[in-house]
C-alpha cells in the first residue's frame, strides 16, 4: 500500500471512531437503590380502577439519607404519581404504560426535592382532599399562609398522560401583596431514561417560535424566554412538561444540573382572587399523540433540520403500521416508496455510468494522445461525451438532494418512540435497539459488497483496495445502530442492486 492508501485507511478508521463516539447509543440500566421507602399513609391511597397487585406494597424508591417526603400515590392507567402532602407538589411521576406495553421504572424525579413544584410562599397549614369520579381523580390542596390561601386542584384523568391544574390564590387579609409565582421542573430527569450522548436530554422552553434548550451541565447563566407556551424536561422518548400562561420562562443552573421554570408576579389587593389553569404532561413523545393534544408539545421531538421530511416519513410509516401492525414492514414499504420516487434521478445516473465505462478505452487513448495538455484533453473528452450522448442527465444536484432524504429518514427512525419495543420478525424483537445477533448489519455489509461489484469501477488498484474496505467499515458503523435503521439501509441496498441488475442487462443488450 502506498502513502495515499495508508492515509485513507487511517482517516476512515478515525471517522469510524469519531462516529461511534457520538452516535453510539448508550443503554441505560436502571439502578435500584436499596435505601428506604417513602412513608405512605395507606388510608389515603386511592385505588386504581384496575387494582394492581403491588398496590399496597411499599414502593421501592430512592430516598436520600436525611430526607423523607410525606406523600401519597395516585395511579391512573398510564401514570403513577406521588403527591407531596405538605405542599401539594408532584414529588415524582412514574410512567407505567405505553401503548398497552408495560414499561419499567421510568420515573421523573429529583434528589432531595419534589420534581414539579408550584412555589408561591411556603404554607403553614395544608389541607387536601381526594375525590374519584368515573373518569378521573380530583386532588385538591388548600395551602394557608397568613393572609393567603393557595389552592391547587389536580385533575388526573384515568386514561391520559395529561394532568390539569386549576390554581387559585386568594387574599383574605386586609393588606396588598406581591406574590411571586413559579412553576419549576427538575433538576434532572430521573431514572430509567434512554440517555444517548447524541440525543438531547435536558430542559426545554418553547415560545411558539422555537425551542430553547441547553444541556443541563452546560447551563451557567440563566436562559430567559418571554411568553413561553410550555416548559419541559425531555429524554429521547419521554417528556415532562407544563403548559401555562406565564410572562417568563427560564432555564437556571442548579448544582451540577439545571431547572426549568415558568414565573409570574401577582399583585393581590385585599379580597382579590387570582385564578388560572395549567396542564402537566408526563408521557411518551409520540408525534401524532402530542399533536392531537394541541399544545405544540410535539416540538419537543428533535427531528433535526429536515423535519419537514422526517415528519411525513413518520406519518407514512404510521399509516403502514396501522395496516400491517408491524413497524419493520412499514420501514420496508417506505423505503420502497422513496426508491420509486427518486428512481428517475438515480436511474439515469446509473445508466450513464455504464455507458461511461464503455468509453473508458477511448478516454485512455485521448489521455495518452494529449499527455500534459490538459486543455486539449478536456475538450476532447467533452466532444467524446457529446458524440456518445453520455452527458449524465442527472447531474450533481439530484445526487446532493438525496442526502436530506437519508438524514430525514435516519432521524425519524432514531428519535421516534413508535419503534420502541416494536418487533420485526424472528430475532429482532425491538427495532429501536441494535440487532442482538448482528445479522442485519452483516447482511448490509454483504449487500454493499455486491453493490460495489456491480457498479463500474475505475482503474486505480489502490482505490480498489479502499473500496473493498468500505463494506467492512460500514458494517462496523452500523453494528450498534437501531435495527430499524439497519433494515432501511439493507432494503435500500437490495433495491439498488435490483435496479443495477436491470440497468446492466439493458445497457449490455443494447451494445450487442
Amino acid at each position, binding site marked *: 500500500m502506498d502513502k495515499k492508501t495508508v492515509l485513507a485507511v487511517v482517516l476512515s478508521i478515525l471517522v469510524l471512531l469519531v462516529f461511534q463516539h457520538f452516535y453510539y447509543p448508550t443503554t441505560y440500566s436502571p439502578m435500584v437503590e436499596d435505601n428506604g421507602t417513602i412513608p405512605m399513609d395507606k388510608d389515603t391511597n386511592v385505588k386504581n380502577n384496575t387494582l394492581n397487585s403491588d398496590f399496597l406494597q411499599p414502593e421501592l424508591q430512592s430516598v436520600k439519607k436525611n430526607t423523607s417526603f410525606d406523600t401519597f400515590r395516585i395511579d391512573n392507567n398510564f401514570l403513577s404519581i406521588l403527591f407531596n402532602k405538605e405542599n401539594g407538589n408532584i414529588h415524582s411521576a412514574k410512567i407505567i404504560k405505553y401503548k398497552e406495553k408495560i414499561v419499567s421504572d421510568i420515573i421523573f424525579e429529583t434528589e432531595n426535592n419534589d420534581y414539579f413544584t408550584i412555589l408561591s410562599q411556603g404554607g403553614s397549614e395544608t389541607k387536601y382532599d381526594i375525590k374519584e369520579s368515573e373518569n378521573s381523580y380530583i386532588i385538591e390542596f388548600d395551602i394557608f399562609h397568613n393572609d393567603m390561601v393557595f389552592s391547587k386542584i389536580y385533575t388526573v384523568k384515568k386514561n391520559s398522560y395529561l394532568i390539569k391544574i386549576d390554581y387559585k390564590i386568594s387574599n383574605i387579609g386586609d393588606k396588598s401583596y406581591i406574590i411571586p409565582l413559579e412553576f419549576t421542573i427538575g433538576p434532572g430527569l430521573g431514572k430509567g431514561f434512554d440517555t444517548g450522548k447524541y440525543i438531547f436530554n435536558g430542559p426545554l422552553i418553547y415560545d411558539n417560535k422555537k425551542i430553547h434548550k441547553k444541556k443541563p451541565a452546560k447551563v451557567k447563566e440563566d436562559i430567559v424566554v418571554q411568553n413561553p407556551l410550555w416548559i419541559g424536561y425531555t429524554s429521547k422518548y419521554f417528556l415532562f412538561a407544563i403548559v401555562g400562561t406565564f410572562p417568563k420562562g427560564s432555564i437556571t443552573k442548579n448544582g451540577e444540573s439545571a431547572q426549568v421554570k415558568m414565573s409570574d408576579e401577582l399583585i393581590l389587593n385585599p379580597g382579590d382572587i387570582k385564578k388560572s389553569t395549567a396542564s402537566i404532561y408526563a408521557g411518551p413523545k409520540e408525534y401524532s399523540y402530542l399533536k392531537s393534544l394541541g399544545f405544540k408539545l410535539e416540538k419537543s421531538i428533535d427531528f433535526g433540520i429536515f423535519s419537514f421530511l422526517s415528519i411525513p416519513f413518520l406519518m407514512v410509516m404510521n399509516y403502514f403500521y396501522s395496516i400491517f401492525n408491524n413497524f419493520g414492514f412499514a420501514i420496508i414499504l417506505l423505503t420502497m416508496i422513496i426508491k420509486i420516487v427518486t428512481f428517475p434521478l438515480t436511474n439515469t445516473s446509473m445508466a450513464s455510468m455504464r455507458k461511461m465505462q464503455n468509453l473508458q478505452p477511448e478516454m485512455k487513448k485521448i489521455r495518452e494522445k494529449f499527455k500534459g495538455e490538459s486543455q486539449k484533453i478536456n475538450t476532447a473528452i467533452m466532444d467524446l461525451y457529446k458524440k456518445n450522448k453520455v*452527458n449524465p442527465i442527472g447531474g450533481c444536484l439530484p445526487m446532493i438532494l438525496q442526502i436530506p432524504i437519508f438524514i430525514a429518514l435516519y432521524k425519524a427512525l432514531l428519535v421516534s418512540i413508535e419503534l420502541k419495543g416494536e418487533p420485526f420478525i424472528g430475532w429482532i424483537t425491538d427495532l429501536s435497539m441494535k440487532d442482538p445477533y448482528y445479522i442485519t448489519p452483516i447482511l448490509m455489509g454483504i449487500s454493499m459488497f455486491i453493490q460495489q461489484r456491480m457498479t463500474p469501477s*475505475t482503474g486505480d488498484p489502490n482505490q480498489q483496495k479502499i473500496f473493498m474496505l468500505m463494506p467492512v467499515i460500514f458494517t462496523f458503523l452500523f453494528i450498534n445502530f437501531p435495527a430499524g435503521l439497519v433494515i432501511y439501509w439493507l432494503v435500500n441496498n437490495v433495491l439498488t442492486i435490483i435496479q443495477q441488475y436491470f440497468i446492466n442487462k439493458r445497457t449490455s443488450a443494447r451494445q450487442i
Partner: protein
Amino acid sequence: MKLKYYLVKLIVKTISLYQYMISPYLGKNCKYYPTCSEYAKQVIEKKGLIKGIPLSIWRIIRCNPFSHGGYDPIK
C-alpha cells in the same frame, strides 16, 4: 492569514478524500468538466474561501437535469 491557509488546505483535502473514497461509489453524475468537486477544489485554492465556496455551490446548483453541462473551467 495562516488560519485561512490551513482552512483552505483542510477543505481541499476533504474534497480529495471524498473524490478518492466516496465519489466512485456514487458513480459519475457530473455534467461538467472539470467535475463539480474538482472545480470546487481549484476555485477555492485560486480565489479563496469567500469567493470560492459560493462559486462551488453555484456550480452544483447549475449541475442539474435541465442544464447542458460541458466544459466549464475556472475563470
